[in-house]
Every structure is written in C-alpha cells, then in structure tokens.
C-alpha cells in the first residue's frame, strides 16, 4: 500500500473528498484517500465536513412550501385568448 502514497496526496485528497463520500472513486483511489486521511487530520475532518454539508443541504429542502396560487395565471390567460381566437374565427 505504501506504493500508493504520494507527495501530492493531501491536495489530491482535499479535491476528492466529495467523490469519496459519493462512492465515485475506484478501489485504488479510495484506498489512496483512506490511507492519507488516516494520517491527516485535515482530510479526516474534511470527510466529516462533506457528510455534514450533505446533511445540511438535504435538511434545507423546502418540502412544505406551497407554490403561489398565481402560477397558472399566464397559462389560463393564454388558454382564454386561444378560445377567444377560435370563437372569433368561427364568427367570421
């Protein structure tokens, strides 16, 4: 495993923490990040921070917010115009 370790592991790990949490890394890349994070407090707390960010964003979803009643106003107006046009065409 030591062969996987590189000098640029820290910068690389910091950029791939989200990929790691998401499960988007290959086995080899995942091990590279895990080995680095075992020795790096910044990267191990970075993993926790990404997970916390995802929880935070999920918790902000505005599930109860209702759309305003007016959202179909333009559709209704457009439909009414269409009907008027049809009526006028029939009359002429």
């Amino acid at each position: 495993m030591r062969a996987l370790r590189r000098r640029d592991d820290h910068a690389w790990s910091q950029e791939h923490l989200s990929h790691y949490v998401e499960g988007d890394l290959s086995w080899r890349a995942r091990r590279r990040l895990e080995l680095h994070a075992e020795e790096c407090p910044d990267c191990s707390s970075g993993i926790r921070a990404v997970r916390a960010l995802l929880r935070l964003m999920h918790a902000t979803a505005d599930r109860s917010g209702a759309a305003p009643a007016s959202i179909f106003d333009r559709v209704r107006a457009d439909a009414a115009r269409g009907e008027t046009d049809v009526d006028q065409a029939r009359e002429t």
Partner: protein
Amino acid sequence: MTRSLTTRRPVQTAERDLVRCAQAGEVAAFEQLAGEHADRLYAVVVRLVADRTEAEDVVQESLLRAWRGIGRFQGHSMFYTWLYRIAVNESNRALERRLRHGVATPIDEESVQIPAPARDGPASQAEQEELRHGLDTAIASLAPPYRTALVLRDIEGLSTREAAKIAGVGEAAFKSRLHQARLKVRAALGDAALIAASI
C-alpha cells in the same frame, strides 16, 4: 437521500391520459398534470434564483412555455423531467438577464430554512443562523450550472440520472459540476462550522 420520484416508471397511464387531454387543448388537464409538481418546481426555482418574487415569475413563464409546447412532449421521459428542464432553462435565462443588468444576486432570507432542533440554546441558534446565511450566500455565488447541479441533487434529492437529464448534460459532466460545487460551498462555509453544526 434520493426521493421517491426515482421509483416512478416513465409516463404512467393516468399521466399519459392527462398529457393527451392537455395536448388536445384542455387547460384543466394541463393544470392537474403540472399542478402535481408545482410545489417542488417552485422550491427548485426559489433555490436557483434565490428570490421568491422572481421565482414566481419564472415558474409562471415556465408553465406558459410548457403549456404552449405540450404538443412537442412525446412521453420519452417523465413529464416532470421535461417540466423541470424548462424551469431550469428559464431560471438560467433570468440569472443571465440579472447579470446583464449588473444586478447582484439577492439573498432571499426565506430561501434556505434549516430546522433548528427544539432544545437549541441561543448560542447554537446564532451559529445555525450564521451557517444558514453562509450556505445561502455560497449557493447564490455559484455559477448557474454548478448551482443547478447542487440544487437538483443535494437539496432536492433527485438521483444523478434524473438531475443530469434535467440539467441537459451527461452523468459524468453532471457529477463533475456537483463535486466542484460542493468543494466551493464547503470552502465558503469552512469544515469546522459544518462539523460543529452537525453535532
């Protein structure tokens, strides 16, 4: 964390009937069809444009475009995917107009709501409030493609496949945008604040 939309099958029978009626010009059918997604559609647009008044305008315009274009909907995807894509495009147009006119992105105080645990004390609530504002600002400062990725996937909880389809890009490109967006938001908020808020 993905929501129940992922379990739907493409164009169910009831939806197909409503689509057919809407395509025949029945506005009530269109309202029923689009109305089922209206609350979530509005929530997504509020996130994208970070302003409730503008979001209302964008949703109205999106629904008008969908109504006028319903004849072109062929049912190869879910109706909501098609509708969301129109709304995302319309939101991006609104953001571009705002940029052209040099208007700073407004931060709607109500656009991000973090439910505070009931037993929070004043200090914790203040921290939550600060983080809430920080998250709002960080999301609003993202370029539209990155903001769209974050909102659809991480806030709305759509699957990567659904969100990529709505954003109009391939899954790999979408994931790349998502990871970049998370990196920027994380950098803006700081790891310490995020971890402290999650405890």
